[in-house]
């Protein structure tokens, strides 16, 4: 046993002694047993939102078993892909106390850029990196303007939201871009299914997995969370705040461009009016998924689950035959209920954790 191990154990034993009275009173296992060793650091965060999602699916599926049909579930999930991808990037922006309202605009602009290239005869597979680069560049632009003007990213991206969409509309001349070579392998593969599951869902799965690791385990992800936790302390620790902001907003642009690529492949056309209001849905998905606007924390898995909840609700409303004019109302109500349920669960979890300590 090294000197260090011994010191850590001593400290833990001392703490257990100090708080031993409280532990016994509540009849919970004392610190140091298996219960305290569980990775509770992240478990309850996603548990709440996943529970809400499962309850929703069950709540619709029991009266309407057709809803549980695998085709229907896959379609519902596929509908959420675009917002899910935006939400994956948005988590990074929110976790460092920034926000990217421009994703709806960048989505449309990247889509138009890609569609135009393909219509002009560029190989669709070559258009993909161009679209991804465009989206990344838009994110970098957001970050640079935010930094240079020393304005909140909320205001800057509110402006660039319209700016980017405007560029898309102008490039497309306000019309849908059609006449694309739909028999190209890009449209049949990326817009089709792979192993019975839409290709887009595989991409979402991969992006979710990679970004979960990036946020939780890498230096960049740690920087993002550190800055969001206490921006002043981050500066005083010498953490490169500006560089991290550029990277985070670029990532948000990149995942948005990813969504554009998949949309181009699936719809086989470039519609500059697509994606209106997606930015707010993406933010709602993040918040439902447990990423607070105050930053410091974030969950990519939670954000995707949040986007899935929104899609399940939209699809469920069809099953319940809710009049079309009430769908917005119902979606809003679900967002409120989901956020309330999640925060209630989280509070309970925290109380339990503090009692155990």
């Amino acid at each position, binding site marked *: 046993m090294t000197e260090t191990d011994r010191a*850590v154990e001593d*400290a833990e034993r001392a703490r257990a002694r100090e708080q031993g009275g409280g532990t016994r009173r509540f009849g919970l296992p004392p610190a140091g047993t298996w219960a305290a060793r569980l990775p509770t650091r992240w478990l309850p965060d996603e548990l709440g939102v996943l529970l809400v999602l499962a309850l929703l699916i069950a709540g619709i599926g029991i009266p309407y078993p057709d809803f549980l049909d695998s085709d229907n579930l896959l379609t519902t999930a596929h509908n959420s892909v675009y917002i899910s991808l935006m939400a994956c990037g948005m988590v990074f922006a929110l976790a460092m106390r920034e926000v990217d309202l421009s994703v709806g605009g960048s989505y449309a602009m990247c889509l138009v850029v890609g569609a135009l290239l393909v219509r002009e005869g560029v190989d669709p597979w070559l258009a993909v990196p161009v679209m991804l680069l465009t989206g990344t560049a838009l994110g970098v632009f957001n970050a640079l303007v935010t930094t240079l003007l020393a304005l909140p990213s909320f205001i800057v991206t509110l402006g660039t939201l319209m700016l980017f969409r405007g560029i898309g509309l102008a490039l497309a001349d306000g019309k849908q871009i059609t006449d694309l070579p739909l028999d190209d392998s890009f449209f049949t593969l990326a817009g089709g299914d792979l192993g019975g599951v839409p290709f887009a869902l595989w991409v979402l799965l991969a992006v979710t997995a990679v970004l979960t690791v990036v946020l939780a385990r890498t*230096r960049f992800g740690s920087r993002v*969370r550190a800055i969001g936790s*206490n921006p002043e*302390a981050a500066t005083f620790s*010498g953490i490169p705040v500006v560089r991290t902001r550029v990277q985070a907003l670029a990532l948000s642009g990149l995942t948005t461009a990813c969504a554009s690529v998949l949309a181009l492949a699936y719809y086989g056309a470039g519609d500059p009016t697509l994606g209106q209001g997606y930015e707010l849905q993406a933010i709602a998905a993040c918040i439902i998924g447990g990423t607070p606007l105050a930053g410091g924390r974030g969950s990519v898995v939670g954000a995707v689950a949040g986007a899935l909840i929104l899609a399940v609700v939209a699809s469920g409303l069809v099953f319940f035959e809710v009049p079309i004019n009430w769908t917005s109302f119902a979606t809003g109500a679900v967002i409120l209920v989901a956020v309330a349920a999640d925060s209630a669960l989280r509070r309970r979890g925290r109380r339990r954790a503090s009692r155990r300590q």
Partner: protein
Amino acid sequence: MLDARSLVKSYGGVKALDRADIRLRGGEVHALVGENGAGKSTLVRILSGTLAPDEGSVRLADRAREGGIAVVSQELSLFPDLTVRENLFPHRPPRRFGLLDRGAMDRAARPVLADLGLDVDPGTLLGELPLADQQLTEIARALLRRPRVLVLDEPTSALPAAAVDRLEQVLRTLTERGIAILYVTHFLEEVMRFAHRVTVLRDGRVTLAGVRGEEIGVPDLVKAMLGAAPPLPVRRERAPADGPPPVVLSEVCVPGRLTDVTFTVRAGEVVGVAGLQGAGHLDALAVVCGRTAVSAGRVGVGDRGLPRSLRDAIRAGVAFVPSDRKRFGLMTDRTVWENTTSVSWLALGRGGVMPSRAELVRRTADLTARLRLRGGPHDVVARLSGGNQQKVVFAKWLATDPRIVVLDDPTRGVDVGVRAEMHAIVGELAAGGAAVLVASTDLAELTEVCDRVLVFVRGRITAEVSGGRLTEHELAAAMQSGADVRSNGGEAHRS
């Protein structure tokens, strides 16, 4: 006018005030001085009625009843986005037909503003005024209540020298009206200038009660504030290493803050900086940390020149422990290991893009063991005690193996035991070859940890105290006068 007798106030066993008396007379400025924590603020709060004493009584003369006591507090309590007029009448502004009556407000405010020599349009937004005028606005607001007793709690700590002269005029005008003024400060120079009488507090007791200003001098005040000279602390002699010093400042100027400041810190040396608020000692630290631009002079930090930013300084080997740890030092909602790796890994990139978490935690455990931190690497910092939180701040900088350590009030708000541990760590750092710079509001701390202390007065180094002369009294006197004290050991920089 006001007579307070044997006031006692305890906070959990600690006596903040112990049978303190104070008598204020109309037409006099009565200064209240004492070190930090001597009980000045407690006394002010009891006099103003926001705190009830455990024992004792406060009596007001009949004449004073109607107007009562007005307090102008240390921190400005104004609204920068409202107009001067709106700031002057925060509650119950004059109204006509339910709307604010600007005319009546201005009529009431005009004579008071004129008294204070504050020539501003009442419609100006307060935030656009210079700081001195904001302070005067706050005094005007207090005077509009027509008090018979006015308490000014460290009014000049935020003011430039010219504004202090104006304040002197204001005090004279007010005392001519028969108002009693209690002037709380730690600038002894101001006491000698403004005050008719002085009361000194030390550890909650009155050590000098209402003495007339002309009967005493600065040394008497220092003695009353600090008590009899304590025995000299035993200092271990350290031998600073040879070779180029890691910190070099040569005739450095920062407009309005530092003038021709020259000093070096060698490896293995602990150098303190001391001064009253705004004297420039903290600006010298800011220069070393890359937080201040320099208009003239040469700076060397580590192997480089003047750091352009704090990040730049950190990469040159600087560790900076700021005084406000909750705000600048810690992520309190995060675990210990996330905090301790925030400089070495997140800022300096040691460990690469994706180091193993177990490795980061193990390194944290090494540090927490070295610092005897009570709490494991996975504990959330907010749950630790203040002393252990400060150890986390130290740990995150120790993790970088700094060559230059800059400490601003490193033991603020920690208990005596932790304080001693921190001092031992500072000693170890110096023994390990680091150059250490310390600022502290606690003079005793400087005498305990430093090899020598540079005293700043109005942006210049006016004295260097070291060896056997490094005592609280010597430092306090040097900070106050800035001219008379020369140390036998070191050379005094003057220009």
